[in-house]
Structures are given as structure tokens and as C-alpha cells.
């Protein structure tokens, strides 16, 4: 059974976690196909676009800020450990550096090398090149590890199916920031593993799991917890699918809603509920 992961090359933590979860399920991954080169350098054109999108002031603030403050792993660390960034990072010499545990232990490439997993980078995940690579790997099951919208030419390649894991319970919450929207709407937080079709989060559901986030306290901590759980669920479902122990349940679009990025003012409400030990309606 050839399992292939489709991902972005800079999503180290997420993809390595998925790979580790699959390994724990004794599943061997045939290959990883990654979208190449994140926008590591800001070109002049990108700078102008960013300035147009966000204004000049945040760009200047970003430019003059400490790189450590911009590191998403650092924020995750703080979310989990509750330690102030400066306190966590300042070494005995008084100089800033990143703790080892703030960085993922491994990059995707390192992990792939260690476990003899074939890895290929492509310029565009929807390109014919990407489809050819997937065909070359004789993909049976394609797993999404955090990707943009993938078109039909790619979805047609896997012989069995394509799976994605979603950060909320489907069909109720489709789209973006869905864990936050679940809390805002007083519903249970959870994860859903589903097959991928041409729509956004509309494929048949394979597995749903509710997650207790009462101990999370913040959105960042909640996202870390749900994220870990969703990788485990994806691996578990892949195994059950191979063993033919899962029955897909078609989604009815009308049973849910499509959500979009949440405004900061609403996020504050979500933060407050989490700080007070949000329990949600785990029966819903």
C-alpha cells in the first residue's frame, strides 16, 4: 500500500508529526511530495504588496522586530509552557537564542532521509508535474499535510482515496479558524478525518472525535492540542481504511456552514472562554 503525503516544505512540525503518527501505526510511507520554497525572502514587489495589504507600519515593525518574536514555534512553546518568550529565550550570557525544543526535532527532509522515504519538491501542488510524481510513486492513499486547495487532476491520481484531517467537527464547521468558531458557537471542539472531493471540506466523513479543551487556556494552546490529536486521528484512520474497517458517511452541505478567518474582536471572546476553562457542548 503506497501512502504519499502532500505538504508544504516549511510545515516541518506538522508533517513530521504525521509521519511519526503513521509510523506508530506501523504504516510505511512511500513518499512525501512538498511544495517547494516558502517565501523566505521578501522581494521589493512582495514588500509593496504587503504594504498594500497591511499598510506600511506593521511592515516596518516586522522589519525592526527581533526575529525570535516572529517565530511561530516560539509562540507554540509559550502556549504550551506558559513561559514568557524573553524569559524562555534569554541565555546565561544575556544573548537571545532559540532553545532546541522550540525548533522541530527534525525537518521533513531529515526525517525522510532517516526513514528511507522518497521526497520530492514541486513548484506547484496542482501542476501536471506533481500529478506525474504522484503517479510515479503509484499512490494508493494520498494524505494532506496542510495544503492549499488541490484540484481534480491531483485528486484523480490516488487509487484508493485522498484523506484530509479537519480541525473541527464536520459537517457543522467548514472553512477557516473552525476550532475557534466551534467555541464561539458553544459547540464541541474536535477533529474530522474525511475524504477529499472538489469542494472545501465537503468529502465523505470517515471519523469524528471530540476533544476536551478545558485545560487549554488560550487559543494557541488549544490549537496545539487539537493539532496533535488530528495527526493521530489521521494516522489511525489511514490504518483502519487499509484494513477496510471504515465506512464513509456522505456530508450534507446544508447541515453545516462555511466559516472564514475570525476577526480579532471575536477571537478575544474565544480567548476569554478558553481562559475560563471552556467545556463546550460535548454532546452536540
Amino acid at each position, binding site marked *: 500500500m503506497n501512502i504519499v503525503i502532500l505538504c508544504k516544505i516549511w510545515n516541518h512540525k506538522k508533517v513530521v508529526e504525521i509521519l511519526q503518527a503513521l509510523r506508530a501505526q506501523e504504516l510505511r510511507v512511500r513518499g512525501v511530495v512538498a511544495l517547494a520554497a516558502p517565501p523566505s525572502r521578501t522581494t521589493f514587489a512582495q514588500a509593496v504588496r504587503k*504594504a*498594500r495589504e*497591511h*499598510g*506600511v*507600519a*506593521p511592515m516596518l515593525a516586522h522589519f525592526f522586530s527581533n526575529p525570535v518574536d516572529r517565530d511561530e514555534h516560539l509562540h507554540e512553546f509559550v502556549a504550551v509552557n506558559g513561559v514568557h518568550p524573553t524569559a524562555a529565550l534569554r541565555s546565561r550570557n544575556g544573548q537571545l537564542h532559540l532553545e532546541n525544543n522550540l525548533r522541530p526535532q527534525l525537518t521533513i527532509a531529515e526525517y525522510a532521509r532517516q526513514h528511507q522515504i522518497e521526497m520530492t519538491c514541486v513548484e506547484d501542488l496542482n501542476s501536471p508535474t506533481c500529478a506525474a510524481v504522484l503517479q510515479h510513486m503509484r499512490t494508493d492513499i494520498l494524505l494532506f499535510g496542510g495544503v492549499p486547495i488541490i484540484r481534480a487532476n491531483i485528486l484523480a491520481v490516488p487509487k484508493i482515496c485522498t484523506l484530509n484531517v479537519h480541525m473541527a467537527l464536520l459537517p457543522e464547521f467548514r472553512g477557516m479558524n473552525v476550532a475557534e*468558531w466551534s467555541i*464561539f*458557537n458553544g459547540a464541541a471542539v474536535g477533529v474530522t478525518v474525511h475524504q477529499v472531493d472538489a469542494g472545501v471540506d465537503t468529502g465523505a466523513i470517515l471519523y469524528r472525535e471530540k476533544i476536551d479543551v478545558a485545560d487549554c487556556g488560550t487559543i494557541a494552546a488549544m490549537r496545539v492540542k487539537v493539532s496533535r490529536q488530528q495527526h493521530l486521528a489521521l494516522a489511525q484512520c489511514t490504518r483502519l481504511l487499509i484494513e477496510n474497517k471504515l465506512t464513509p458517511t456522505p456530508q450534507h452541505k446544508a447541515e453545516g*456552514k*462555511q*466559516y*472564514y*478567518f*475570525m*476577526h*480579532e*474582536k*471575536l477571537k478575544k*471572546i474565544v480567548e*476569554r*472562554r478558553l481562559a*475560563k476553562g471552556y467545556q463546550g457542548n460535548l454532546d452536540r
Partner: protein
Amino acid sequence: MAALRTMAKQLRNLLEARLYRPSHLRIGLQDYFDLRTPARALQSTPIHLSAAIDWLGRAQDANGDGGVAARYRFSHGWTASYPETTGYIIPTFFNYATFIRDERYRQRALRMADWLLSVQHENGAFPGHDVSQKGEPRVFNTGQALLGLVRAFRETGKEIYLQAGLRAGDWLVAMQEANGTWNKFAYYQRPHTYYTEVDWPLLELFATTQTVSYYEAAAKHLNWTLPHQQPNGWIDKCGFRDDAAPFLHTIAYTIQGWLESGAILQPEQPVKNIYVQAALRAAEALLHRYEIRGFMAGQFDRSWQGTVTYSCLTGNAQTAINWLRLYELTRDARFLNSALKLNDYVKSTQDLKNNNPGTRGGIKGSQPVWGRYISYSYPNWAAKFFADALMLEVKLLRELERQEERDEYRHSLQNLES
């Protein structure tokens, strides 16, 4: 040829814009480099709100007649007072007076209402255009003036406002065609679906007087509009002239007309009302398009694709109001979420520091200022809708806060009991 004409017009507008004035140049440069205020640097909502209201106050004082100047133009400064929009600015000032508990804004609203009485035609109609031109009667403008008169009557109980309102209402009923449309004295002498915004004031008059003829006229037109909605929520005939790609301004008018009419006709269960349902379909389609693209275009085509790269700020503020009202009616927080983003966008274009009283705190017709909708101008209706949107935003967020507090209190009581 048409493209050449458009270019010539744009060039003429640019030359007339008096960009040698520092305040105008500043806005031109800000828009050229898109130096809007970043989201995190925005002031609190009441500061943006009071700046818009102050601008409207200056627009009222510009001519000294009690009416509100139609717009501040880069080319000629303040224009003459405009009956149509003065009409619907009246409720905004009454609401703001209550909002900050300041009687002065109420007095301003009453001065506007008194001025309206002075420009009403003998047959009950109100003129199109601002009062510098000899405006012939206009259906839409009369409807908007009616909104202000009804509100002035409700606030004061003075019969004079009601009588003027009744005459305006009677004229609207008399001008209506048998099929429910208005052609005569309509914009470009043709029927428009955005005249749902005339149905709403007629229904307000009906709610005040219980005179059935106003209800019948409104219902007849509303029923004419419904079949013009397509399955994707799009509304035909909702443009001034260009129905292929109408301004967001008139799309939002149509939605608001449906929404407010439905809310009056079925106050117990507005969401079940057919007009509210129509508004919901269109508003939801617009919301999806906005969120996917991350930008609200100034004009749309029948498939809800934005056809231009500028934003119609008036339409943005109106759409935010529609979404906030829909949140209020449906409690679907997606509407609140998108309205907050759209309000932030308009806030980011509001210049709070400009030395020019004609631009400080006002809202441009378009972003950038040379966009096709009311180019190089600050129309009073943009500031009016923006102020309405912000007041509604504050009200709904306060309600949400109170609800949170109640839930927390209930939760802590349950914990104590257990």
C-alpha cells in the same frame, strides 16, 4: 471610443482636483501608495464614529440653511444641501444623540427636518439633486426624505412633520405604475429593484399611520422585485444605469430595502419573511465573495465577480449595516465577523488628522479617491452609512459582552450549587 471618453473624463477630474492643496495632495499620495491605516493602528470605534459625525456636522454648517451639503469635492469644496440624503441623515443624528446622550445632535436633526419642510414641492415630492439646481421631483429622493420626516414625527410628535410625510407618501403612491414599479420621475425613467429603499419608508409611514395605501404600494413594488432575484442571489435591475455591473451602493440599497421592509412586516419572526429571505440570499453571496477575495470591489457582475479594482466605501458601509442587521436577526456570527472586517477597512481609509475640515473624518466615495464612484469627493451619505454601521457595531458587541457576562454568571452559580 468609450474608453477614450472615460480616460478624458478621468484626466479632467484629476486636473480639477486641486492637488496643489496640501490636504488634497496628501490624500492623493496616501491612496496612490495605498497607505491606509493598518488594522492594528486603528483608533477605537467611538473615535472613528465621532470623527464621521463631526464631519457631517460641518457638512450641515457649510451652507447655513439646516440641510446637509451633498459632498465635499476636491474641485469646488462643499456643495449645496441635498434633500435626499439630509432625509436619511436625520435618523442617524437622532440615533447618535441617544448614543452619546447629547441633545445638540437632536437639535441638528430637527434643523434638518425643518429644512426639508422648506424644500418640499407643493405636490409632496422632494427634488432630485442638491438645491443649487432646479431639481424636478424624484421618487427615490422623496422616499429618503420621507424616512427623515417619519422619524422626526416619532421623536417630536409634531404634526407638521407627519403632514409633510403624508404628502410625500401620497405622491409616491400616485406616481406608482400598475405593476408596482416607478418609471415616471425615476432615475433614467425606468424601474429599479433598488427602489425597495422607497418601500421601506412607505412601510414606516404605514406603521405610523396604519394607512393601507402605503402598505399596498410598498408590497406591490416589493413583489415586483422578488422575481428579479436569481438563484445565486443576484438581483437584476439594481443599477443606476449599468445593470451589467452595478455599484455595490445600489446592491446594498436593494438588500437593505428588503431587509427593513421584511422586519416591519413580520416583526415577530423576521427571518421567515420572504423579503428578509431574499436579502439573506444576496447578502450571503456577497459575504462569500468578500471573504474569498479578501477585498470588496466597488462593482459586481451577475456571477458576483468584482469587476473593478476600486472599492465603493459607501457600499462597504451599507453592506456592513446589512450584515450587522442580519446578525441581529439570525444570530449567525459570520455576518458579524465580516461586518467587523468591512468596518475596519472603511476605518482604515478615514483620515482623522487632515487639517482640511472638508476631508477630516469624512469618507471618500471610492478607495482610491479616483475610483469611479463619486470620484475626488466625500459624499455625506458615505459618512452617514459609516456612522450607522459603527453605532450598530458598538451596540451588537455590547450585547455580546453582556450575554457573555450573563453566561459566566450563570455558569458560576451552577458551580456554586454543585
